[in-house]
């Protein structure tokens, strides 16, 4: 028993959870921006995958992983725009459009991998992102271990969490965005340019997923593999809901999911006389329980999933 507690309260578990949470946090905040303007975004999964692929491609072509990150952001923006076109302009059902996007990107990335690297399984190794050590912070005992040495995307994640919260709840853009997700017609009668804000928000959502994807491929490992996102987009959407459509909440929820995952991995190493499969189930069971509890009292934006025609 004490072995298990040791693992739970081990600083390495907390530190590993930060790394695991990065793609979840980016995608979950992408989910916040999308759902706050009324668009259900199941496409987070595909956007992450697209980002992961583009990042490796950028690094492969230039040898510079930072160019890879920029390419992932750019491709994310384009994917976000395509998703916006389908859900806003062509008024597709949001769930169908999201699932469609995921299938499209799974197919496209696999196909491109075959063309570029001649393999459907994994890409070649590319240059990944290196860790940056912050001198002062890294020498503080516990904090240093948690925050002292990471690659650039981890630091950027903390900035994004805080900035997103400020944008949503302290700026005119954020207020307008929230009004649109709750009551688009009210926004319309206030003279708010609904479509412009919705497109901006969805493109931003794509950019964030691009960053999350880039972390998956260039931050974790140094290659891309087929279906690399492996359901993280769906988990991120759940984190967005559990976090109450709030960037801070989304961060907390993502971190919780990531923590259980880190725990699971470390517990497997303990030889607990329990089948590994059972331990691997723990994070998913926790996700289900947490979500079942959160769903009961959560209250999504009132106009989520509904189409609003601005044209007359």
């Amino acid at each position, binding site marked *: 028993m004490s072995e298990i507690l040791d693992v739970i309260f081990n600083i390495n578990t907390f530190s590993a959870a930060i790394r695991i949470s990065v793609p979840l946090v980016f995608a979950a905040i992408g989910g916040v921006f999308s759902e706050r303007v009324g668009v259900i975004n199941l496409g987070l999964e595909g956007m992450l995958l697209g980002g992961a692929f583009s990042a490796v491609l950028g690094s492969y072509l230039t040898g510079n992983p930072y160019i890879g990150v920029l390419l992932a952001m750019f491709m994310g923006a384009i994917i976000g725009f395509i998703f916006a076109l389908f859900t806003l302009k062509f008024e597709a059902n949001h769930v169908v459009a999201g699932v469609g996007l995921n299938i499209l990107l799974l197919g496209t990335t696999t196909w491109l991998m075959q063309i570029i690297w001649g393999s459907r399984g994994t890409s070649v190794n590319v240059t990944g992102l290196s860790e940056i050590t912050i001198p002062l912070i890294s020498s503080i005992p516990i904090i240093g271990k948690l925050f002292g040495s990471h690659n650039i995307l981890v630091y950027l994640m903390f900035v994004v969490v805080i900035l997103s919260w400020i944008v949503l709840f302290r700026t*005119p853009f954020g207020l*307008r965005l929230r*009004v649109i997700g709750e*009551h688009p017609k009210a926004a319309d009668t206030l*003279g708010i340019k609904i479509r412009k804000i919705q497109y901006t928000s969805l493109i931003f959502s794509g950019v964030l997923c691009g960053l999350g994807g880039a972390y998956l491929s260039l931050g974790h490992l140094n290659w891309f593999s087929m279906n690399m996102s492996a359901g993280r987009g769906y988990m991120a959407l759940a984190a967005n809901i559990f976090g109450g459509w709030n960037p801070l909440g989304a961060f907390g929820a993502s971190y919780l999911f990531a923590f259980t995952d880190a725990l699971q991995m470390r517990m497997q190493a303990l030889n607990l006389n329990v089948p590994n499969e059972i331990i691997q189930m723990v994070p998913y069971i926790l996700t289900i329980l947490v979500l079942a509890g959160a769903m009961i009292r959560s209250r999504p934006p009132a106009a989520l999933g509904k189409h609003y025609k601005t044209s*007359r």
Partner: protein
Amino acid sequence: MNIIEFKGITKTFGSLTANSNIDLQIKKGEIHCLLGENGAGKTTLVNILFGLYNQDKGEIFIAGKPCDINTPHKAIELGLGMIHQHFMLVDRLTTTENIIAGEEPMKNGFVDMTRAKKQVRKISDEYHLSVEPDAIVENISVGEQQRVEILKVLYRKAKILIFDEPTAVLTPQEVASLFKILNKLKAGGKTIIFITHKLEETMKISDRVTVLRKGKVIDTVNTSNTSPKELAKMMVGREVLLRVEKEKKKSGETVLEIRNVSLYGKHKRPLLQNINISVNQGEIVGIAGVAGNGQLELEETIAGLRKIQAGQILLNGEDITGKQTKERRGKGLSHIPSDRLKRGLVPSSDLAKNIILGNHNAFSKKGFLQRDKIKKYSKNIIEKFDIRCRSLQDNVDQLSGGNQQKLVIGRELSTNPVFILAAQPTRGVDVGAIEFIHQNLLEIRKKNKAVLLISAELEELMSLADRILVIYEGRIVSEKKKYTREELGLLMAGEKLG
């Protein structure tokens, strides 16, 4: 001086002409009523003015200049403001956030909430529109929500205010205070366009009235030169009985009895508390109250759509508390639901099918529907209840609200019921249909049936009901034979009679 002039405005939706060649002038600083039945084209016209629709033909002049208003944004720039019938408010935001959204005061790129609240307070003081700047919209009363809507418009410096059926959701006290606000706005130099289908209000508040019927302007008159009777005639196109004549009648045996009924919602929130109601033969009993005080729950409870936690419901002395809706209907309960499109009709299905709805077993043989029998029965009801339609194959959603309601009433009154639960039977229907529905309810009373009338229309309750019970926060707070309007208003607002 004319601040607004409509010239030849025409707007069609598919085969329906909502506005046909409308010419209309609004003078600066007046309160101008647009009076008309539902579907007369009032709302369409102001939606065109406010840039929510674009007209097919015609021009609008604001202060003498032709204006192309194609978005609300443009309308707001021109000094127009609209207070919508269904409030355009975000429930979860504060009043201040609702007011400033889209035109936020800023400081260094952030919303300056301190300044925003100050501005809101300044305008609300100027026009006596008391609003709490930090309150969340869903927690404030309907009257206060309406004041937030007015503030939204004034905050955007509107000079012309359009009110779309603003009194529909208000108590008599709230209406009185709205009228004070309107006069205050007028004194401040604002021009007001007031849409309504209520004659009494028109007479009370307006300087001039324009009557619309079937998308056309019938006439514009000075309010001081006209009468409710004349206006009603212009609205409907024929003479209308404004007051129904009710014959004196002695009530008979008790038909429906509700004993100590209580109902709880989520988290044990009480929705109905210890309700006692009895309705006798040949009697109409009225339930008065502001929407959302338990009327819907009471309706659902009696109809058998909700399970109660305590108490008993008796129909003709028989306990029906645990019985399902179908069994209750079999024992002679008829139900005119408050939401006809949600509960009373299948809008995308044809008239005949809707007419036999719930009674279809009487029209089937060996598991098949008997089409001829249905056709004959439907024709009879359509004729008897004056349901205007092109054919039996029409879908219900092609009918006007009034005709839809007549269909529900025709169906429910034709099954030879002993008790009729009539919830908001005239909601959203026009003067002509209201008259018809009222006569039918009195007719059924004459036949010694029992009627429970749940209504938000005080006029309706006062002219039809033999007794009125007032419901407030799920309790019956008062029961009497006669009330004045003021008394009902106070009781409905939760006050006590002194």
